């Protein structure tokens, strides 16, 4: 079973990001990067599905600067077989649609049975790529997966997804796009032999041009700003004063 996992290089989620003074993005210089934690779950699921199927190939792909090779290596160290890097030096110059169309071109090259991705990334938080990719490919999609069972004939998969207020179980034809939610699995650690082996695994590089993808975003970032700081509150002496303030100052009561 051939599975393609799209991963993204994102700033370390435990560190508070700083904005560039001119508001054109976040300061990335000197920030530690990691693989989007949801994508790590997607890699883990791909490895488990491959192990269960008794064979196949797991390919990790990313779109990013050459530094994103480090994130591909993380996936390779976990056990993925090879990597694909589509070189892009400016994350702000592409949008979810460009990413989805680029992944579509990678899918066309690789012809996987399944595409697994994290449900969203902690930097953009847009939660659009899996859905857009499925649409561009004309494939079924199952998002927010918390359980994936591939049928013995590899023609379909049963996916339990975390919907509002409960769990929903879908059956999707394969090939399909599945996005991983937090509770899908507990990812393994990269073992020391895994890290050593990853050094020797192949990473193919592409450009948007070589894949025939137009780098034409539909969404452009106009500016970045931090949410306004919360203003200090005030202590009121009585319920009457509170009601009065809500009516006359905050004007939230009629």
């Amino acid at each position: 079973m051939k599975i393609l996992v799209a991963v993204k290089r994102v700033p370390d989620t435990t560190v508070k990001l700083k904005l560039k003074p001119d508001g054109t993005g976040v300061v990335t210089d000197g920030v530690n990067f990691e693989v989007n934690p949801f994508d790590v779950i997607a890699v883990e699921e791909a490895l488990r599905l491959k192990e269960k199927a008794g064979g196949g190939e797991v390919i990790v792909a990313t779109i990013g600067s050459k530094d994103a090779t480090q994130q591909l290596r993380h996936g390779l160290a976990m056990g993925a077989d090879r990597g694909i890097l589509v070189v892009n030096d400016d994350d702000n110059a592409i949008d979810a649609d460009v990413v989805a169309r680029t992944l579509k071109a990678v899918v066309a090259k690789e012809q996987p049975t399944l595409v697994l991705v994290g449900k969203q990334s902690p930097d953009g938080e847009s939660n659009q790529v899996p859905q857009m990719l499925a649409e561009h490919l004309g494939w079924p999609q199952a998002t927010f997966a918390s359980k994936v069972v591939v049928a013995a004939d590899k023609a379909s998969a049963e996916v339990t997804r975390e919907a509002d207020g409960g769990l929903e179980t879908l059956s999707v034809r394969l090939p399909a796009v599945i996005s991983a939610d937090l509770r899908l699995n507990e990812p393994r650690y990269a073992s020391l032999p895994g890290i050593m082996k990853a050094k020797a695994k192949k990473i193919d590089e592409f450009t948007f041009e070589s894949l025939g993808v137009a780098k034409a975003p539909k969404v452009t970032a106009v500016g970045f700003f931090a949410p306004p700081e919360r203003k200090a509150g005030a202590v009121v002496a009585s319920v009457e004063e509170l009601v009065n303030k809500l009516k006359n100052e905050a004007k939230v009561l009629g």
Partner: protein
Amino acid sequence: MAQTAQSASTSTELAKGVAFLMDPVGSRPIQTPERFTEEQRLFHKSALDFLRHEVLPRVPEIEAKNTAVLLELFHKAGDLGFFSATIPTEYGGMGLDETTAMLISEAMNIVESWSVTLGAHAGIGTLPIVFFGNEAQCQKWLPKLATGEVISAYALTENNAGSDALSGRTRADLTPDGKHYILNGSKMFITNAGFADLFIVFAKIAGEKFTGFIVERSSEGLTVGPEEHKMGIRGSSTCPLILEDVLVPAENLLGEIGKGHKIAFNILNVGREKLGIGCIGAAKYALELSVKYAKDRKQFGKCLSEFELIQQKFAQMATSIYAAESLGYRTAGLMDARISLIAKGQPDTQSKVVQAIEEFAIEASILKVFGSEMLDDVADHAIQVHGGYGFVEEYQVERIARDSRVNRIFEGTNEINRMLIPGTILKRAMKGELPLLDFSMQIMAELQEPAKLPKLDGPAPLDTARGLVECAKRATVYAIQAAAQTYMQALGEQQEVLARLADMVIACYAMDSAVARAGQADTDDARRATTHREMANLFAHEAYESVLREANWVLESIAEGDALAGMKSLLKTLPERPVLAVVKVHRAIAAACIETNGYPLV
């Protein structure tokens, strides 16, 4: 700064042990965390992930001596390859460098009960076979030790032989048929004894020749005594070992007859290096917990992290971690530079590795002493930041502070290591291995003509710090020379003088490493170069004061009257520490800690 012509070796040849004391600061590149390879970072991250997600959540069970939990985690760690880092590939290991092994130790030591369990197995329990085992012993044991299928322990200490390790009474006698040794005696404080399958035991053949043996737990006559109840590292197993007519096959003799001390001392070199580096991991974690707590906890309507005296602690914690980290990974890098040139898989490969590590025995002792005392200070600050909560078991800093204490005791007490530092330097200088005398004569000339002394000012931001390092080395070597001339061969008996000399050498290595690293950070870590500089500079100022103070104490201990006055006036030629706006520096370093939720250079 005006650099005088010191006896610097060129940067193309391999650095020798203690070269830092004579070479100008930054005269050759040093390994720093900024220069780790992608793989080294991945190995560290993997160990850290494992520690944080698997081990930390189970600390209460581990500390309650739940051996089943400890062993479950132990075998998981084995499956991930954490025991195999420095075992050669031909015996099922990874054949990785010292630096990687150190990075794993740093990560694991966040929970010291856990890390000593690993260290007793993969470090002191396995390396004697790696370094001194014959082909058959390596084939038989190493693949199983690499995976953790066989768990190992190291049995050197006896109830009457602690620091004086070679005075042990355990004896081994060859049977008349020459096929076995019969071991009799007892060993104390054996880490992992509760569950180890294999013991590296030291015993004297015929009561004389100190020799290493590989002893299986299943051997008849071997008994493991009850668990000790310890102040810290409570989750680890520590028991005595009783050997009563234990039959050990003659082929289990490790290394050469009568050369057990070679095994014991060389294993200690690696053990000290790992211990020192491990302290860095625990200290970073204590700082992280403290910063997070202080940002959350409010008193007088403000977060603790806004108070100056809390910020001062953050700055001091971060700065001492910085110095330890700088000298620690520099040391690992020095060893690796030598080890990387050794042809692998040859009959003499491992003896050359042992030599390469031994070259930096002094640096390893420094790392052990500096790291363990740094962690004690950092853990103590961490408790203070936590206030009353730091004193209750529910908070991790309480455990870290208790666990920290043993680091000054095992792997050679800090006192023993302090004796070794100047002792070994002088021994090497006498043998002509170190140009200490040349440098000492240069210093005498400089002190008599102060214009020749290194300057404490200059246009570059680190010039003052560099000057302080150079002057500190001069004070140190001057004091060593004065003490050596006064006492000659009897200096070995002057423990207090030796310890002060050791403290000066330790300060020199720490300053030199921190300042050299900060210099490299201009290009290696440009965005945070200011934080590097602030910490290196602060450390250099503080260390310089302590070096001058110790130098004066040494002189006052070894001479009196006119002789003393002459020596002190020469020492006074060294410049005074220049002005440093210390409060401002503390604020800046603390701000970096607060911003990054802990040690600012992760």
